């Protein structure tokens, strides 16, 4: 119906290899991008700052983690700590008077440096053992941040982010914050879309499927595993800087605890391992389902005059939230992105029922 494939003739290799060969997909992507650009003028502040801004930041983080988990097949339970390293580095560097752009890169570099050290365990251990190693990293980083007042910011353990400028524009208020976050999100998204088509991405896929098989066909697993951790941690660090400057504006250690890491792993798994679109879907579901269900129950209770106790009122959304995640994973274990792909496949061959492949 929407996806008209009739009459599309690829006469050059480039045109067939483009990210979105179908015009509909291309137009949808452009439309969404234009919407994201115009969002500050279309949405009110509540939806811009309360929903869209955290969504793009968390999606960027989920993309970075998805690169490691979906792309290179390495589990990471300490991604929140890497984001924390980036956030603290960026804030301390800007407080020391360095430009924000440099601080952002600095946060990424320090995060990558720490990430690669712990990632090195991936050379020796796999699966659940790697999960334990990265979990250890989460706790070590938490501990270091809390134990050194010089890092966490004195007795109140809250560091205020100074006013910074990005490419000469002061990052004050909602608009510049949103565009900085969007810019980083777009860059990371483009990287993720393209990395799979590069030799680097294919090498990672080989490592993901079976590392010694990859070694047999001549892929240097040592190099590619470490690079995967480096890149993923670098993205985490940059996201941390964006998170601190554009969204939180005050950082404290509890923002980067294990909850954040688990939340991100959940986003990647619910969204779909290795899927770019899935990272966005997963972030939206994990972040906003509790809020929306809460409001739904609240307004239902008011509208129907239900006398439910405050305890049940508070916990019912949690039950529904859990059921929702399990429900989605039962419906489609490959994640939300796969649900989207199924719908797309359905329309690709509509009005027929099945695609040939």
């Amino acid at each position, binding site marked *: 119906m929407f996806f008209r494939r009739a009459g599309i003739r690829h006469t050059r290799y480039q045109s067939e290899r483009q990210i979105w060969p179908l015009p509909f997909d291309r137009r949808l992507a452009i439309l969404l991008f234009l919407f994201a650009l115009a969002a500050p003028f279309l949405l009110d502040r509540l939806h811009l700052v309360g929903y869209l801004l955290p969504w793009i930041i968390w999606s960027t983080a989920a993309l970075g983690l998805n690169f490691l988990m979906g792309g290179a097949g390495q589990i990471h339970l300490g991604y929140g700590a890497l984001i924390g390293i980036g956030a603290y580095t960026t804030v301390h560097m800007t407080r020391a008077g360095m430009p924000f752009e440099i601080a952002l890169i600095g946060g990424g570099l320090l995060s990558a440096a720490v990430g690669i050290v712990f990632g090195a365990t991936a050379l020796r251990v796999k699966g659940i053992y790697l999960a334990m190693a990265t979990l250890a990293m989460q706790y070590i980083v938490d501990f270091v941040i809390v134990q050194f007042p010089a890092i966490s910011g004195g*007795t109140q353990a809250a560091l205020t982010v100074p006013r910074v400028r990005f490419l000469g524009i002061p990052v004050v208020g909602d608009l510049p914050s949103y565009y900085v976050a969007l810019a980083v999100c777009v860059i990371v998204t483009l990287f993720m879309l393209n990395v799979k088509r590069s030799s680097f991405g294919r090498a990672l896929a080989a490592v993901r499927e079976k590392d010694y098989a990859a070694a047999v066909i001549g892929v240097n697993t040592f190099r590619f595993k470490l690079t995967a951790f480096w890149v993923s941690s670098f993205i985490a660090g940059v996201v941390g800087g964006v998170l601190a400057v554009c969204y939180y504006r005050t950082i404290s250690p509890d923002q980067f605890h294990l909850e954040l890491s688990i939340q991100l792993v959940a986003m990647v798994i619910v969204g779909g391992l290795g899927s770019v679109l899935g990272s966005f879907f997963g972030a939206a579901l994990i972040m906003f389902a509790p809020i929306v269900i809460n409001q739904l129950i609240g307004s239902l209770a008011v509208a129907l005059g239900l006398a439910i106790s405050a*305890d049940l009122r*508070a916990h019912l959304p949690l039950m529904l939230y859990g059921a929702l995640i399990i429900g989605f994973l039962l419906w489609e274990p490959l994640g939300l992105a796969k649900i989207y792909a199924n719908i797309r496949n359905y329309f690709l061959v509509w009005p027929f029922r099945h695609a040939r492949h």
Partner: protein
Amino acid sequence: MERRTFLTGTAAAALMSQMPIRIAAAQDKVIKFAMPQDFTKVYTFVTAEYNQGQRDYISLVNARGGINGYQIVADVSDHGNDQPRAIEAYERAKAGGAVLIDPLSTPVARALVPRALEDKINLITAFSGRSDAADGSVFPYVLPLSPNYWTQAALLIDHFKQKDGGSLQGKKICFVHIDTPFGKEPLPILEKLAEKEGYELVAFPYTPPGNDQSAIWPQVRRARPDWTMFWGAGVGQTVALTEAIRNGLPMDRVSSSVWLSESDMDVVGAAAATGVLKVEPCVSGREPKLIQDILKEVVGPGKGAGPENKVGTAYYNYGVMLAAIMVEGVRKAFEKAPDGPITGEWLNAGLTSISNFEAEGLIPPTTVTPEDHQGGGKARIAHWDGSKFAPDSDFFTANQDVVWEEIKKSSAVFKETGK
């Protein structure tokens, strides 16, 4: 029901839930208080009791005709101690025209400070948040309205001193605390007072969340303290108290902050914990007139916000205390500017002109000024007598010079780097 109908129905309902704020905001003669609090994650029953007290008091005020004909609307939601959710709730409250927000969570309160200062919405950080927010000249829109942790520690030290005949010279005080910024907060005050009073301070940190402290307390026992303070929240408190009892510390020489309640005693064993001390910012129990009024006019007719047996518990009364101070702020604001407009600035003027307010005997005389957002730093020390908390002292304040030195030092750092 077909799956498609179900899905579209749910989606429509989810969208509809975004609507009501605009309708509510359009109503006249309403003052909105936003109370996104943590009902599900860390503070759980603390929040439930605190919030119940707040809502019951607000129901009482509304049932009596409100303030100046205005009804107070308490918009309660759950932020689960999760900052993105709290920021969403804050933005929602702001969009809905709320003039005050009370998140009752230290991490959330700390994160909301820059927003509240910028948007001029009164951020209430009772028993939570930044201790240095007591300095109103640096934090005009952040109002603790209650003795902060530094004051609580300072009051306890003064109480110990009174009990030991006016001197702590050569005494040993053990401070057992959760190893988080919150737990370490009183340390600078305790260290300073140790210099001044001549006692020896020994600190024992335990790892968060504190559900296993069995390694720490035998060390405390071996240190043979004259006084012990334990400082934590949630599960850590009951575990600490259980371990203190198990290690045979004399209960009447063990104390905690404001975070100890009847519910904790049920967990620990009400009889075993007899004697343990706590800081009381307000009168507990059902005797105060306001609690009696609530029982008669709100709970009696079946309009109570929660189970009746929680009325008059420690945290319930904290909730009534804070709601009473907030409503007194509204009253003062109407005195200053009867015609409004009802904004955060308007309420702030009211809140910072509260003077000698006692909430009909529930709280110590509280004076909030544009400089002092703590409200005077008065509280009393109470002990558990096996069935309820009984006061050991009158409401008093002490060592405020040391506390304010620390507040000024910390707020100066914020002022310097915050903008």
